[in-house]
């Protein structure tokens, strides 16, 4: 284990709690292997307990960049044939293969894992946006087929996840063979829901992916709202609502990420009341329109999509989030030490205020927060000047 920075010989890793998140993005689009992310998660080993880990990689399949890459997990071969049969009815399958993997000591046997590179057949459901049609098929498979899940469905990206420690999952999927300009990674400590293969993070829909630490206590109301917009929650865990809400707000409704952040982690009412106009009016409108998508409870998420990475914590910071910059690279992590380990020459690190998103976009270099607190490394932003 080249990334192993320390060895625990006490077998007490199920004792501690809280999930570990890590993400990095090269805003020039240059692709990197995932060793930084694997190393970082290993440094935060106490944050997980072996019941789930995973990775999302962007810029992953340049040779199939025009195709939707469906990663599918199936209970058995019959289930897989059923999925394949379904896909053939609505998609042209350009390529299909088992997702390469290696048996790893200590891991329980997982599901059958395949990937399909597909394009929608022309003429079908043409009244819809193409992405909406794809979502509908993913939802149909995930909610109606008993033994099959599509757990990744974007273009030129992919999610790899399962039940195990991060280094086991990395070895299982041979993550060292993949390259991407953006990686997010997750080390799971399941609390309210079972640790199963589909429930590991990241969660994805189209090219959205989400890794999450915390509990979304507004899950019920978020879920009902999303169901009204055609998103069905099937993964038995709270995190998937964030992926679907990201798609609804930022793709379908066209909200800028800053405003999506204001939906998920809205300022408190007393803070809104203290804002000048027209800002106050914007925030009132956001809360009134999207109150059902406010994420209540303690959380930190890293949301990624093609060309973009967003880190966000709840508005009173009940879960940790730190960020760092080195040249064209933005790092987001649950713990600072993991950033230093992944990038020993890190130039600037800071801890954003709760509810303030940290963002990177392909083509523009990441910027430190607009604050004068340069004397020290931890530089809190002021939300409104």
């Amino acid at each position, binding site marked *: 284990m080249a990334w192993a920075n320390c060895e*625990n010989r006490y077998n007490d890793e199920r004792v501690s709690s809280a999930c570990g998140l890590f993400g990095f993005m090269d805003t020039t689009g240059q692709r990197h292997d995932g060793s930084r992310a694997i190393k970082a998660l290993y440094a935060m080993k*106490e944050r997980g307990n072996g019941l789930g880990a995973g990775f999302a990689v962007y810029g992953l399949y340049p040779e199939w960049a025009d195709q939707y890459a469906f990663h599918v997990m199936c209970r058995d071969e019959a289930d897989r044939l059923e999925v394949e049969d379904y896909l053939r009815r609505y998609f042209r399958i350009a390529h299909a293969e088992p997702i390469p993997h290696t048996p790893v000591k200590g891991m329980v046997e997982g599901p059958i894992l395949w990937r399909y590179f597909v394009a929608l057949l022309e003429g079908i459901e043409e009244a819809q946006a193409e992405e909406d049609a794809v979502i509908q098929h993913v939802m149909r498979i995930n909610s109606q087929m008993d033994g099959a899940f599509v757990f990744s469905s974007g273009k030129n990206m992919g999610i790899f996840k399962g039940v195990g420690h991060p280094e086991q999952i990395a070895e299982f999927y041979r993550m060292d063979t993949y390259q991407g300009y953006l990686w997010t990674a997750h080390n799971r400590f399941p609390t309210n829901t079972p640790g199963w293969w589909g429930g590991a993070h990241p969660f994805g829909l189209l090219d959205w992916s989400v890794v999450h630490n915390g509990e979304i206590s507004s899950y019920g109301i978020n879920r009902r709202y999303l169901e009204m917009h055609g998103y069905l929650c099937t993964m038995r865990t709270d995190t998937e609502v964030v992926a679907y809400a990201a798609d609804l707000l930022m793709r379908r409704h066209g909200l800028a990420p800053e405003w999506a952040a204001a939906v998920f982690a809205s300022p408190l009412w007393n803070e809104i009341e203290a804002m000048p106009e027209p800002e106050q009016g914007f925030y009132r409108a956001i809360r009134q329109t999207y109150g059902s998508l406010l994420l209540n409870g303690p959380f930190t998420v890293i949301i990624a999509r093609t060309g973009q990475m967003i880190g966000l914590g709840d508005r009173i910071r009940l879960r940790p989030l730190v960020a760092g910059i080195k040249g064209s690279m933005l790092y987001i992590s649950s*713990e*600072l030490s993991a950033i230093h380990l992944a990038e020993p020459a890190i130039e600037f690190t800071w801890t954003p205020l709760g509810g303030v998103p940290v963002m990177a976009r392909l083509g523009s270099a990441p910027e430190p927060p607009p604050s*004068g607190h340069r004397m*020290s*490394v*931890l530089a*809190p*932003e002021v939300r409104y000047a």
Partner: protein
Amino acid sequence: MRERVIAEEAAIHTEAVLDAQGLYYRDLNERLYRLVEQGARSIVLKNVSGQRYIGTNLQAPVRLTIEGVPGNDLGAFMDGPEIHVMNDAQDGCGNTMNSGTIVIHGSAGDILGHSMRGGSIFVKGNVGYRVGIHMKEYGDRRPVIVIGGTTQHFLGEYMAGGVMIVLGHNLKPGEMHPSRYIGTGMHGGVIYLRGPFDERFLGKEVGLAPVEEEDLLLIERYVTRFAQWFAQDAAALLQGPFVKLYPRTKRPYGRLYAY
């Protein structure tokens, strides 16, 4: 007992280096403990990377110097040692610490000094959320936290005792502390703040007062120590004005569940 005292005196200047590279925190603390038993009194920890609970089981007048970024709960339940962090510290540093000193040359994360009941913490840079949450005092045990820079929200949440001083000496002219909800649920202790902040967002349980002579003496005592740790000019750091934040009542929620 007498033999132990002699051994300790003989070892007072004994120095040691511990390479933390690849060490799980339990092994790291085990080795620290053994070094101290063997008489080491000044130990440099190199290549520290996220190991939690460093120094938690040491009850000796030992000085630790940490190179790298230590993990959460550094010095938790600490009783006596002096820890110097040459970089930043993560969350939960000084959790429920009993006595001793922690000196952080960078910044510190959330819940620094959580439930602290004695000893002192000095931070050169900034600190995160909920610093000094529920710190408390009893008799001659009065914990102290001095912060050179600024703080994020909920400083001194549910604070029950002790002293916190925020110097704000990295604020630009005219810049306010970003801190909101300072002293929410505070019912003991005192906070001294230098530099402007938004009074609209103060915790509801906090009163504001100008500092008086005895406050200034207290501030001077701890800021002088702060200046010594970081080789700063104490007189410059002491230039006010300071404002005093105090709990308006000892039982802010006394009637919350009473009908």
